[in-house]
């Protein structure tokens, strides 16, 4: 195994410049024209090739999980992560490594022209190595994407639960999107925190933006209401659409202890009455 890797290392070291040109040509033909301009392909390739040659010379192992490959892995990880930010597809990211295959094979064949058997073995080994490197870039790419999704989920969670003060002692909580357990937790916490901050007596939970209400969502709502009540604030549910009213009754969810109103406006009037204020229409309207 060791002499084979050395052969590959020798080829890379000897024909570095030619390989680089062949690699870049391959990369540019595979990449979309606009995209290849936006990144420093030549710089990255020129950085990767010597590092690969050096690693192959120093380590006998072709398993890229080994400690000897840590620098190569790190460079590939950096490149992949940058690709994610620049909006590349996984295929385009992996092609960075795969495009190197063809020129390498070409020079391997030339170097071992008098020994076809060794040449095919060399090529098989090199192919496995580059496949692994390519898969590694995809792996990093995927992880970077997952991180972005996770962060966005978090941000969405915070964005989607605003608590607004409508009036003195009256809060409103317009809910948008489906209520799951983790969102209920955030909603509950922000509502209760706001109740403490403002000293509100009444909170209106508006569910106009909640697409469906099933038993679980209803239970989450009731929990929120119970927690607010424990703190000394009453809740009104508003924005119940006809379909949702039907579903709630069909499901047998008990909302009898809760004040419910069809629209936020109706709920607001009730809240004002409870808070001891009222709105008067001026003449002419």
């Amino acid at each position, binding site marked *: 195994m060791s002499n084979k890797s050395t052969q590959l290392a020798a080829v890379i070291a000897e024909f570095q410049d030619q390989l680089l040109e062949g690699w870049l040509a391959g990369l540019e033909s595979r990449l979309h024209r606009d995209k290849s301009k936006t990144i420093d392909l030549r710089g990255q390739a020129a950085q990767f090739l010597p590092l690969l040659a050096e690693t192959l010379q120093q380590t006998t192992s072709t398993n890229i999980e080994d400690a000897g490959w840590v620098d190569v892995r790190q460079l590939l990880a950096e490149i992949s992560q940058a690709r994610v930010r620049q909006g590349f597809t996984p295929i385009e990211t992996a092609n960075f490594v795969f495009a190197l295959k063809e020129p390498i094979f070409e020079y391997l064949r030339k170097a071992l022209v008098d020994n076809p058997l060794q040449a095919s073995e060399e090529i098989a080994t090199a192919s496995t190595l580059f496949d692994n490197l390519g898969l590694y870039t995809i792996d990093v790419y995927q992880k970077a994407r997952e991180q972005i999704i996770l962060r966005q989920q978090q941000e969405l969670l915070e964005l989607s639960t605003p608590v607004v003060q409508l009036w003195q002692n009256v809060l409103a909580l317009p809910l948008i999107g489906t209520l799951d357990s983790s969102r209920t*937790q955030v909603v*509950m*916490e922000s509502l*209760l*925190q706001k*109740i*403490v901050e403002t*000293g*509100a*007596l009444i909170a209106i939970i508006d569910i106009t933006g909640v697409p469906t209400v099933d038993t679980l969502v209803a239970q989450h709502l009731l*929990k929120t209401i*119970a*927690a*607010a*009540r*424990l*703190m*000394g*604030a009453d809740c009104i549910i508003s924005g119940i659409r006809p379909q949702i009213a039907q579903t709630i009754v069909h499901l047998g969810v008990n909302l009898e202890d809760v004040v419910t109103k069809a629209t936020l406006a109706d709920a607001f009037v009730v809240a004002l009455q409870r808070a001891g204020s009222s709105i008067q229409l001026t003449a002419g309207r």
Partner: protein
Amino acid sequence: MERIPILRMGRLLLVTIQVDMHDRLAMALQEDLTNRIVKDRANGVLIDISALDIVDSFIGRMISDTAAMAKILDAKTVLVGMQPAVAITLVELGLTLEGVSTALNVELGMKMLEQPG
């Protein structure tokens, strides 16, 4: 043994829990409070738990039981100043304290007690 003080204001009793509640303390409070309601002929009890930031199921039940006992002795009971974290915990534990009045702070709680009926 350390005890939670019960203050009398006219016919109202004021209980402020300022220390960490542990089980023995909670039991003692139940005993003291029921005795004092009878002795002082109190018609209102205000329990301030604003300094309480951790509850377990036992303390949660104790709070709810204490309030229920005061109610049976015909004293209107208001639980005030519950922290958000405590409220969430109690709800998750399924202790929604049905039938116990709650208020955001002592001032609002007093107002509730002063209202007739």
